[in-house]
């Protein structure tokens, strides 16, 4: 018997099922006139919006103009076909994690963290690593089976790799918050190349986090997992011990 997948098409919703209503705003690099307004409307048509309406158009000076539009999106997606890659593990609480590390590793897990390269946004990595934690979720420093080393802001990838070797890190946590011009992609690739070059890529569990990071992206970049907004220490620690156990099972 083959499994029957029921299609589940979804469309944006305004006030009636499948009306497809979406709101759009953008700037055009031309002064406002009727033709520019029509250009805005045509762009929405190109995006596949039926009956697009330019509900607001305003000149911004210096040859720019601003538009707000509403329209009915023709597109739809089949939710039944979407399966977002997720790191496979169950989030445990601190005690359970400590117990598991003790049981499986028989020693403290060494976790090394940093904001790398030019990025100085430490609040995120601190939230994961420091004693205090975030939103009432204590950080890794408070886990007695974890040795948490937070190198802080703007750490060169070289320094991070050197320290990982020195400390025999089990896990490397990288935070990347600045994403403008995709600088995070360069930084993250650089780090993983360096780990490869030093021959320790396989020895560490490599994790990246930040507000614009998804697990999927992390995987694409050759990382073991990626964590976005609203991640806490227990999430990443649960993943780490789960992953460690898996790797050392064979």
């Amino acid at each position, binding site marked *: 018997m083959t499994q029957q997948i029921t299609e589940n098409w979804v469309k944006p*919703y*305004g*006030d*009636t*099922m499948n009306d497809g*209503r979406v*709101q759009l*705003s953008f700037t055009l690099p031309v002064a406002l006139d009727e033709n520019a307004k029509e250009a805005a409307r045509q762009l929405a048509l190109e995006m596949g919006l039926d009956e697009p*309406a*330019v*509900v*607001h*158009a*305003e000149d911004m000076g210096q040859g720019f103009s601003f538009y*707000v539009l*509403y329209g009915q999106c023709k597109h739809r997606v089949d939710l039944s076909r979407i399966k977002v890659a997720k790191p496979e593990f169950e989030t445990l609480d601190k005690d359970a994690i400590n117990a598991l590390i003790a049981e499986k590793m028989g020693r403290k897990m060494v976790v090394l963290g940093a904001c790398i390269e030019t990025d100085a946004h430490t609040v995120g990595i601190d939230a994961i690593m420091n004693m205090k934690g975030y939103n009432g979720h204590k950080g890794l420093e408070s886990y007695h089976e974890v040795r948490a080393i937070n190198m802080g802001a703007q750490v060169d990838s070289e320094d991070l790799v050197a320290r990982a070797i020195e400390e025999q890190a089990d896990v490397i946590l990288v935070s990347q918050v600045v994403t403008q011009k995709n600088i995070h992609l360069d930084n993250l690739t650089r780090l993983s190349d360096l780990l490869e070059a030093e021959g320790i890529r396989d020895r560490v569990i490599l994790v990246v986090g930040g507000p614009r990071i998804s697990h999927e992206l992390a995987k694409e970049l050759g990382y073991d997992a990626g964590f976005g907004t609203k991640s806490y220490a227990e999430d990443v620690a649960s993943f780490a011990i789960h992953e460690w156990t898996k790797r050392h099972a064979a």
Partner: protein
Amino acid sequence: MTQLNLDQGQIDRARESARRIAHRVFDDMSQYTTTTVERATLRLMGVDGVDDNQIPLPNRLVAHLQEQKLLQHGAAAIVAGAMDEYGLSAQQVAEAVAAGKLVLGRPKNDKAARQSAEAIAAKMCEHIATQRTVRAQQIEKVGEARTPWLYLIVATGNIYEDIVQARAAAEQGADIVAVIRSTGQSLLDYVPYGATTEGFGGTYATQENFRLMRAALDEVGAKIGRYIRLTNYCSGLCMPEIAAMGAMERLDMMLNDSMYGIIFRDINMKRTFIDQFFSRMVNAYAGIIINTGEDNYLTTADAFDAAHTVLASQLINEQFAWISGLKPDQMGLGHAFEINPDLENGFLWEVAHAQLVRQVFPEACLKYMPPTKHMTGNIFKGHVQDALFNVVSTLTGQNIHLLGMMTEAIHTPFIQDRFLAIQNAKYVFGTMRDLHEEVEFRAGGRIESRAQQVLAETVGILGEIEKIGLPAAIGRGTFADISRTMDGGKGLDGVIAKSPDYYNPFPDLMLAGAN
């Protein structure tokens, strides 16, 4: 405390004028009934349903009474007489008349007919009183929100879609859900029947729609632990009938104004004054909070210039409300945040107006309406206009807070518009929770002076209205710059002079029983 220094003498004078204005209108109108008052009476006696042409039986029956030249005596006793005579229910009488099987006449025994009518009416009053108790019990049980209550509208045109949206709105934080009526329903001289799915800019007000939405809100309210109030429009050519339906189905609020129909729907003045009395009486008895429509003046006239017409109208609405048995906590006197956002210090004047209204009606359940006229397609700017409206509302202690939608100038609300509007209000109300206790306005300052000025203008205008009478004042375009005459407008043909033996069981029962 945001209290402004106002002259109580002026307030009293204005209120006295309004009292005399309203009573004079009431006295003049007491000699009439209307087709819709009679239809409402029949509905309250149990007549419902439609004929094959979708014409409601209350309409068929009243039309029949008109044909038979009987309506001036009041429908109640005549129908009760027929019920007694043929051993039928009111509904069966209506059906028989509609089927052409029965022709009504004066009751054989007028006294007995009246007694029967009264008994039927008393039973209905009991039902309505029970609904009132149910409301009180539910509030007791699931609790209710603190004011300002968040009032949201749904207006998809389809009652089932409306229910989906109303439920979501309640979960997101709405305290009151108003189902906006379809464009044009107010000018229908009948109330549509059954569950409806096709409206424009709103959903038809029908008894079945009321029932469906009431059930849905009771359910979601129980789930989220907050009684969700249901609102509709007791307005237009069928005001009394809608009041009756709302009372039976436990609506909690009704848009109901003594002059709105005249001014904004060009409904005949007499018709409106008569209908509003009956409908308010029903609302009063049912424990329904009425919402008056002064906000509308400001969408037509300028909100700064016309501020005193709002207060004058509120005072008149208050007096009409007293006459119909409404208590202050049922008086949702309306006003609005409608000053042009480009006006320098406009926020100060909004505060002055809102606080003035608050102080003139300290016990009323004030309804504060959001910016609409000066909303544009710029939804971002609009969202900020709504935020400042939220600020004024919490600062001046308003009760019913109709949430502004950033898409006001564009479409009836999408689900996300409502969602974001609730977030806006909840953020402002929370972060400013006790601000009203902390802020004082400079004595003799701009805000206080503005409030005093509006009050003085109100005293003036009410004095003038008192001199010429309300109809003449409306004729002069006093409200909203719109002028109407006594014999103009729609629905005059439904105004019937009562014969001396006119009888209706409800006023006695309801005016006495409203608590």
